[in-house]
């Protein structure tokens, strides 16, 4: 279909756009590697005290920590993906330009964010993860099918992640200040995605709750697929379910927003 090529071009643009920021990418790789080392030693200490915390052994905890660093910018866990641009465009009125084009707003931004995510996985994710695998013992699968299953879970995680952030960004049509939304999303993102601690390590009933929220589809599910802790189909169903709900909610909010749209500025 003709529009498939359009969104492919948008995604390619999103990819190349981030590829132009070489210094930022290098700095990101460095930060994620350093954070990974700190987090790994924290986890090692914690798992020494509480072996099998959350059902993970030490190598699994280490794997989880490195995976978190690898997917941190890919899934824009604390924000800073396409939604950041979208928020700015709504606030300044630049969104006007997007609205008079014959393209679907949500698909456009989804494509652009996926392009960004793929770049950040390759540009920022692979190196810290490889570093972790070289210098620490990790629980990595030996068979190619598990790796493929893992990549599918990551792709679904990208869509869920976008779904959450798109909803947040559309709030800008009603709010004129993005700080509240951005900060809330950041805290929820870091905490509920399991960036600080795997979600299965939280005590119940709290653990059960966070594991059923959409953020669990981001890091926890791909990690469990990679380490064989969950059947891929179970993970996919959970992720796809949230993806559909979030994207549908995004559509609704988008049509409400554009119907009452007030485009800012001359």
């Amino acid at each position, binding site marked *: 279909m*003709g529009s498939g*090529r*359009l969104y492919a*071009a*948008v995604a390619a*643009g999103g990819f*190349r*756009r981030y590829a*132009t*920021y070489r210094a930022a990418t290098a700095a990101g790789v460095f930060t994620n590697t350093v954070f990974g080392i700190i987090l790994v030693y924290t986890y090692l200490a914690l798992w020494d005290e509480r072996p099998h915390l959350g059902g993970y052994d030490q190598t699994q905890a280490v794997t989880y920590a490195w995976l978190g660093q690898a997917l941190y910018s890919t899934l824009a866990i604390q924000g800073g993906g396409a939604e950041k641009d979208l928020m700015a465009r709504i606030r300044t*009125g*630049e969104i*006007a*330009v997007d*609205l*008079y*084009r*014959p*393209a679907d707003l949500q698909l456009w931004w989804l494509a652009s964010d996926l392009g960004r995510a793929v770049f950040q996985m390759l540009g920022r994710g692979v190196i810290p993860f490889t570093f972790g695998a070289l210098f620490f013992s990790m629980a990595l699968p030996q068979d190619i099918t598990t790796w493929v299953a893992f990549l599918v879970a990551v792709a679904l995680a990208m869509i869920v992640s976008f779904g959450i952030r798109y909803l947040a960004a559309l709030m800008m049509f009603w709010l004129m200040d993005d700080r509240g939304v951005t900060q809330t999303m950041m805290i929820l993102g870091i905490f509920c995605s399991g960036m600080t601690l795997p979600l299965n390590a939280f005590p119940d009933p709290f653990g059960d709750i966070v594991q059923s929220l959409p953020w669990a589809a981001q890091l926890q599910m791909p990690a469990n697929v990679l380490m064989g802790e969950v059947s891929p189909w179970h993970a996919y169903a959970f992720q796809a379910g949230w993806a559909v709900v979030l994207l549908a909610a995004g559509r609704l909010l988008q049509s409400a927003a554009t*119907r009452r*749209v*007030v*485009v800012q*500025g*001359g």
Partner: protein
Amino acid sequence: MFIEVDGVEKVFDVRRKTGFLKRERRQVRAVDSISFTVARGEMVGYIGPNGAGKSTTIKMLTGILTPSGGRLRVAGIDPSRERTRLAHRIGVVFGQRTTLWWDLPLIDSYRLMHRMYRIPDDRYRENLDRCVELLELGGLLEVPVRQLSLGQRMRGDIAAALLHDPEVLYLDEPTIGLDVISKAKVREFLRELNGERGTTVLLTTHDLQDIEQLCSRVMVIDHGRMVYDGALAGLHEAGGSERILVVDLERELPPIEVGSAARVVKVEGPRQWLAFPAGESAAGLVARVAAEYPLVDLSVREPDIEAVIARMYAEKATA
């Protein structure tokens, strides 16, 4: 008619914080019942002071703002209801914004337009070549947009708006911030576009030279109301402007008296300045002065369009 605007209004609800948890609601009538039509192939200037409602009108014509009242049609389409369908037939340039992809080379944005508007390959190539030539974009295609100068970016934006052969082009301040040479290039291009291709153009600007050089028809809006719609020349009459007859007499004399036909606005030695309505012929006045005074030389000064518009804006503000 290609564009039909009939009693269109736009009222903004503005909420303002007046204290802790206290908000005041106020309504701003940005466009207040305006009507006009534009025929296919016309090139119309749309002017007015800051905050008059020009951009709001253009946003309604593109469909990104829904009118609060009235009827609006572009090519028979209700813009806000069928924005996407209309999008294929219009081109838009907001001078203060850009459609181009900031971090990527200019050509990438054009490739995106190619896909977005589903432009047939040969049309795309032809239009791009033409824009590149006329807007002198040749050396810029591989340059990231953020590295372009304002004038280069604006030319890039104009090209982006035209690749899909729109029937109408809305330009909201396309010459803002451009130097004389860039302005001339843009004007030349627009004249070509309208003349050769018959593209309908609606042009908003604060630079009256844009209008003088491009548009035979001008619409003036102020406080959301249309205060003038007609030929550029007619603005002088509508604005109550005056021409000046400068006469050199043989010697210093008291101010010339010709009744209500003209009034003396300045005397400097033997030279006197007489103001008379711009719509009236100078011949009668000259004959009368020549018959009654020792006339040596004379000249007529045309009113300045800027002054006319300024007076028009000022009158409305105090009215």
